[in-house]
């Protein structure tokens, strides 16, 4: 998708005559504004809904603004036992996976892109193959593996399987691949070893790709539900999505107030993270698109 937009925008600009440019631009902005509204509306609904009493959330016809704003949903959510612990667990797991991915995926990506060794092509093919295999097929075997290692119901069991991902390796490999070989050669001529070349030359150049990888990994882990649900055998290892499902989704009905308050709590850190990394993130998309 990123590739397409990056290519089509200059093409439009070149083809458009002055008069039709304005119409095109109006159309473009109109579409963008519509898209923006469509993207923001669910978020607005979530934030507004989290301060409504349940009766008002399900009311028919529905309203946007709360008639009688209340913090009762947040109050009930935060008064649940261990809520702080679940937040800590989620952060710990997500951060550890981000760190692991940044380090290992970039290392593997560097090796696959810049170092010549036997079996490199086969290895890279394997990475591509793994991209295609759907997670559900490996879910149960993965759990059996983790459980046989004695890691079920531990932080390690939550983190270890996601420390490196094929998508991350692929992303980093493609990015490092486009860094000019001359830079690597220059570093070698100056006497830098592989480690030094990797740490001082390659990594700093990869910042946009690393930011992209960081946010993708964080998002995937922060939202992960099924794996923590299955691996955590006691509540002290639950992450936020699991705890949230426990509190708000019943067998025969959903407590929407609690669910929305929980969603706000879960999504706010992601929005903050995105705002912080926004500059790098967008640059990352642009760079992958130019290739």
């Amino acid at each position: 998708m990123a590739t397409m937009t990056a290519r089509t925008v200059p093409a439009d600009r070149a083809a458009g005559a002055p008069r039709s440019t304005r119409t095109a631009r109006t159309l473009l902005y109109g579409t963008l504004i519509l898209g923006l509204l469509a993207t923001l509306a669910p978020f607005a609904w979530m934030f507004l809904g989290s301060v409504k009493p349940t009766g008002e959330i399900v009311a028919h016809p529905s309203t946007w603004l709360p008639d009688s704003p209340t913090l009762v949903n947040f109050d009930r959510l935060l008064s649940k036992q261990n809520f702080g612990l679940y937040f800590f667990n989620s952060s710990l797991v997500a951060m550890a996976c981000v760190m692991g991915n940044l380090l290992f995926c970039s290392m593997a990506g560097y090796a696959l892109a810049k170092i010549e060794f036997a079996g490199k092509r086969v290895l890279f093919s394997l990475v591509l193959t793994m991209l295609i295999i759907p997670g559900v097929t490996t879910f149960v075997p993965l759990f059996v593996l983790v459980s046989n290692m004695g890691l079920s119901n531990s932080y390690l069991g939550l983190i270890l399987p996601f420390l490196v991902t094929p998508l991350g390796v692929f992303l980093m490999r493609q990015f490092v691949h486009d860094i000019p070989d001359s830079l690597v050669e220059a570093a070698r001529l100056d006497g830098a070893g592989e480690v030094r070349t990797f740490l001082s030359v390659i990594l700093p150049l990869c910042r946009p790709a690393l930011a992209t990888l960081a946010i993708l990994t964080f998002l995937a882990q922060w939202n992960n539900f099924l794996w923590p649900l299955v691996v955590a055998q006691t509540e002290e290892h639950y992450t936020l999505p699991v705890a949230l499902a426990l509190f708000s989704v019943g067998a025969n009905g959903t407590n929407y107030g609690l669910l929305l308050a929980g969603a706000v709590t879960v999504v706010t850190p992601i929005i903050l993270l995105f705002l912080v990394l926004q500059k790098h993130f967008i640059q990352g998309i642009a760079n992958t698109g130019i290739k």
Partner: protein
Amino acid sequence: MFRPQAVRTLVVGLAAALLLTGCGRTDSKQGQGSAGAPIDSSPATGDIAVWAMGTEGELLPKLAARFEKANPDARVKVTAVPWQDYGKKVETAIASGDTPDATLVGSADLATFATTGGLEQVPPKLVDDSAFYPGAVQSSAFEGARYGVPWYVETRCLFYRKDMARAAGMSPPKTWDDYRPFLKALQKEGAKWGLSLPTGAAQSWQSVLPFMWQAGARLMNENKSEFTFDTPEALTGLRFYQSFFASKTVSPNGPVSLGEIEPEFVAGSTAALISGPWEQGLLKSAGGASFVDDKVGIAPLPAGPASNASYVGSGQWAVFQNAENREGAWKFIRWMARPDSQTAWYELSGDLPAVQSAWNAGKIATDPALAVFRSQLKTAQPGPTAARWKQVTAVFDAEIEKVAKGVSSPEEALHRIQAKASTIGTGDQR
């Protein structure tokens, strides 16, 4: 970005992935859990690890504390598990052998779990079957053995707008003959739809099977080796279901998600619905306590030619084959099935007791709404307890949708359900 080699790799990978997915086991080893030794009557000892879902999981420690008082050497460790995707968790645990001692199971999932061979049979003489509601015991039996002990039950009754019925001068219908006139009268009082029925969303079968039962249909043969949907009784039931749509009494676009129908019921655009005991809580949060008191009536389902049977769901306790403390787990389960523990649990959670005698004392004996559920429970039935029933429900729900939308006749639908159900089979391994 991709060179030909990469494309080739992708193709090979895709093929490999397809191959792997195709290798899923459908007919590989299915088993039955073994029947363990009987359980003695000495106090329980040791740690007992149990899973309980949702609110039940959050509240169970309070009940377990009373058990620990009576069994000082035992400690119950409760893990509260979300209802969402809990089946995946149980199945994965069974596959890896990494299980707790016991778990709460929704009755509709019990057969699915039991086919994996991961659940132990209920030890002989652990509990007195006749103490429970018959429908709840029925749903714990699978291929000639019992895998669960009923804990709490729920069944579906008719919720209607009392105020609209009063204005129309109608009392709730007792039989199929009164059913439509009653709903039509409510529609005259301003409701767009007289009743809400599911029209193909997941679990629609739970609301449609009762029509067949009410007409006298039995959906499995005597020894439970085959499904029997192509009977005149089942057809009568399904025709009755269809007649609601033909007469524009029920919307052909029924509710798809939980919580969708309550606002319409509160607004009065839908005048009746069929739901379980939890509905009172949902209506209270959607319309307020005074709405429930003044405008909501609850009545038993109207009777068809054979009965007024409804669907019974239940929470059941099952012990894993790999339990480390099976003795302690079964003792805890036996204790929870005692009438006094059942009453205590009702007071803690509001879940309706599965043991009939637990209904004889306290608030539960006098509450008029609960009296309706109590009478409904006497005849309520579970869905067919077969290993592959879950697969059949997908077919059933899809065909029901065609009937509700008028695309297919009841005859055609039953014919197709029967054909596909025969192909799928019950999964009986005996």
